[in-house]
């Protein structure tokens, strides 16, 4: 099963993936800070991901990939 995987350590929390997601299942994870000090994005409902890749295209930090679920 393919889905988006967010590498939170690379994420700067810009939110462009949120705007790009047609399923509205990406949000900023306010409870987590990464090494760079940003609140990274996260998938709120991974099961709904259709692996369309729009978040990958929108991300300026190559922090998202489409992979087989469980690879991350």
């Amino acid at each position, binding site marked *: 099963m*393919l889905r988006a995987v967010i590498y939170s*350590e*690379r994420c*700067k*929390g*810009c*939110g*462009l993936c*949120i*705007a*790009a997601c047609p399923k509205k299942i990406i949000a900023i994870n306010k409870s987590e800070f990464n090494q*760079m000090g*940003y609140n990274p994005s996260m998938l709120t409902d991974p099961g709904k991901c259709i*692996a*369309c*890749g*729009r978040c*990958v*295209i*929108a*991300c*300026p*930090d*190559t922090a998202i*990939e*489409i*992979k*087989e679920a469980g690879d991350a």
Partner: protein
Amino acid sequence: MMPVMQSPRSLEKPTMHYCPGCSHGIAHRVVAEVIDELGLEGNTIGVSSVGCSYNNYLYFTFDMQQAAHGRAPAVATGIKRVHPERTVFTYQGDGDLAAIGTAEIIHAAARGEKITTIFINNTTYGMTSGQMAPTTLAGQVTTTSPAGRNTSTQGYPIRMSEVLAQLEGAVFIERVSMHDVNHIIQAKRAIKKAFRVQMAGLGFSMVEVLSTCPTNWGLTPIKAVGWLEKNMMEYYKLGNLKGKDLEV
């Protein structure tokens, strides 16, 4: 089936230094993807310029040279004349290309130098903290036009794509935007074609990329893409200015 999407081979893995939401990161990835897809990784020499992307040689996996402010087209000319069989591109911002380096870009284009230029237009000098650029819109507030760009004393923004499209040596010129997914997909198509034009030895090619600078615009990344769409796209019309029908 759905392809697995991952970071392009031509892009190094470390995190880039750009601010959150900055279009540079997207443009870098798109350029790297195009180079991968055209099989050019081992054949490419890039030229970094001065501005926020001054050290993007750290982010690509192919050979690169860093150029003085505005001089990237001259440096690329030198490289291309030594290695005509290689793919050579410059990656320049608007201060670099449209102010201090105006002479170099115009003459590289006029010579039909077989190089490709990726021109990042975000209407501001990002690295030096948001000063007025040659592409700053009329009325736009920057640190050196605090009351908004006053065209009677500060002149008008330059549409470089239109300027360069007039030159015989420039064979492919297109303006694209990176503000949303659909536009990024179109932008990639244009960038790929620009490289193909170079590979076919046809002449100078450039893609102007409308980009955001959320930090210096004082906007969130999301609001910044909205500002670009509302303000920049009106003055800087998207589309092909030259070489639309080239078969490459």
